[in-house]
């Protein structure tokens, strides 16, 4: 026979799982430090790649001036400026990454607690059902 309470509970668990999966999943798999480090590494490579592309565009924009002058000191000065800009930008971007993913992990942890609580409720429901069945069997036995 269908148990309406159990079906409702299982549906709500399934919906919760579907909605919060992307936040809960990393909490199950990684420690907080590993999770953030992983994304920091990704952010580092992504930012460096984008910087290289942008610097290439800037270099092409100034290419004519650079090749016409060929002043090594000036080139070094510009390289320093762009290097510092890259490092400052990288630091800011990594900081944003840390804040965003730390918050996401915390959110995932809270979601995980709710998920576990729901599962426990379902487990209790099963236990209750099993006990009721056993008791009814015992009553039937003469």
């Amino acid at each position, binding site marked *: 026979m269908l148990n309406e309470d159990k079906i409702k509970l299982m549906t709500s668990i399934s919906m919760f799982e579907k909605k919060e999966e992307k936040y809960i999943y990393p909490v199950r798999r990684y420690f907080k430090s590993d999770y953030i480090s992983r994304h920091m590494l990704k*952010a580092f490579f*992504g930012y460096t790649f*984008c910087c290289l592309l*942008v610097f290439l*565009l800037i270099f*092409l*924009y100034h*290419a004519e001036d650079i090749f016409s002058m060929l002043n090594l000191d000036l080139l070094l000065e510009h390289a320093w400026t762009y290097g510092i800009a890259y490092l400052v930008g990288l630091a800011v*971007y990594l900081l944003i990454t840390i804040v965003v993913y730390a918050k996401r992990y915390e959110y995932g942890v809270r979601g995980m607690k709710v998920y576990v609580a729901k599962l426990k409720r379902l487990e209790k429901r099963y236990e209750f059902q099993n006990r009721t069945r056993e008791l009814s069997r015992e009553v039937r036995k003469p």
Partner: protein
Amino acid sequence: MIAILVFKEKLKRFYSKYDMFVIPVIRFLLSFLAFYMISSNLGFMSRLNNMAILLILALLCSFLPYGVAALLSGIMILLHISSVSLELAVILLVCLMVVTVLYYGFQPGDSYLLLLTPIFYHFKIPYAIPLLVGLSKSPVSAVPVGCGTFLFYILQYVKQNAGVLTNDASLDITQKYVQIMKSMMTNRLMAVMIAASAVGILVVYLIRRLSVDYAWIIAIVAGTVAQLAVIFVGDFTFDVSVSMGQLLGGALISMVIAGVYTFFIFSVDYSRTEYTQFEDDDYYYYVKAVPKMAVSAPDVKVQKINSTRVRRNPKEER
């Protein structure tokens, strides 16, 4: 008012009943509109202008996330532009890649804003998008809106200068590249519009979260005023020219659109606001509860007493 609320309820009921079909249809329409606009405004690659191709692509996008539509739109734009100017296509590719890697790594769900923003610009109502984004999302969404604005002005630049970019044989590749970069960096109108969008989103977001009556309506008005203020400042400072009629007309229509959105998403009855306060071990709570405006859609049933019409005998009438 009651009639509109009933209509809203009916719409909600219809959406919850047929969301399986409504969502793909909306996706299809948005994707098709984006592809059609790209083809009609750029259309430099004749093979891509085929209506069948656009329909097939839109149909494909109706079953896939908005990110795919944004990706396909980006590819279409790049292909069209590359047939006019390879230099500009490369610049645009780099810009899109930077946005994709740096922003969409964090917030992949926002990609439809990249499509919607140029569409709203095309229909001369760019002030609506910051209002809608401020009401529904966070200030971070200013990034895709800004990118959408950038994309619109790039497309406009290509449209206006297609002849020069294609036929000017006197310029070599580097000169063309420098010219394009200069025109992009000195496009003050674009910078002013991006700033106006960002300020609009921030103002709307901050005000709609306030615990005051009619916060959403105040946010819409304040957001529109803030956008207009930034444009006026830009007009005086950077000498950008914006048509006054278009500006005010666009702002007015944008406010109406945001008002309609507010009605459907956040309709509350401030006259029945209730205040309560209580405490637990750690805090005192001062709660303001504003009830939602809701009416139940009338379930009209037509009871037919006579199922078939009885025709009178004309002879009897005589």
